[in-house]
């Protein structure tokens, strides 16, 4: 696609429920990133995919958070047993992966998650 697409744009759920957030990256971008932006904060890194595999998941806060990218394109961020503290905007970004490492991230508009 022309840009990074994220769905849903808004999600309201109740504490304890399961949530899935989807990201469709720019066609041809092999690298995909998830970030979380809480109110009044900058984006915080969650996980990075190179192709189908998670190359770096050091930012996932706990084992309630999981992400997949089974075919190396679309990714889904999954949150189990949601808590009020999970409320944030979840941002997805993608980039080409060059040998020089000089990669520029293109971000989607985000999925705003509200846990009541």
């Amino acid at each position, binding site marked *: 696609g022309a840009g*990074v697409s994220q769905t849903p744009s808004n999600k309201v759920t109740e504490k304890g429920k399961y949530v899935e957030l989807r990201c469709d990256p720019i066609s041809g971008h092999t*690298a995909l*990133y998830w*970030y979380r932006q809480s109110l*009044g*904060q*900058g*984006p*915080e*890194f969650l996980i*990075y995919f*190179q192709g189908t595999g998670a*190359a*770096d998941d050091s*930012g996932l806060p706990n084992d309630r958070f999981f992400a997949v990218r089974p075919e190396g394109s679309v990714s889904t961020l999954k949150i189990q047993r949601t808590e009020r503290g999970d409320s944030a905007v979840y*941002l997805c*970004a993608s*980039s080409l*992966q060059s040998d*020089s*490492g*000089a*990669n*520029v*991230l*293109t*971000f*989607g*508009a*985000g999925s705003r998650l509200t846990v009541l």
Partner: protein
Amino acid sequence: AQSVTQPDIHITVSEGASLELRCNYSYGATPYLFWYVQSPGQGLQLLLKYFSGDTLVQGIKGFEAEFKRSQSSFNLRKPSVHWSDAAEYFCAVGPQGYSTLTFGKGTMLLVSP
């Protein structure tokens, strides 16, 4: 660990006046540096980036930034601000190799008539 400090949470500038947004970083090697802008309900848009070479980099919308290694700074500047520049601005630092960026907390720019 790498970190980014944006010391100004809010800045108000009159339309037509010059702008400088401050960014200081902590990083153990030569960093990649970025400025992004975020308008309400929008994703982050890249304004400019520094990878190597000339320390004064030009970006979109008339913005520029200067990398000063001795001061660990990468301040964003614009000579004349327009009302449409009102938004939140984020500085970010990343390692060479792949782009796991660390962002600052952002500076909200307000433009007064």
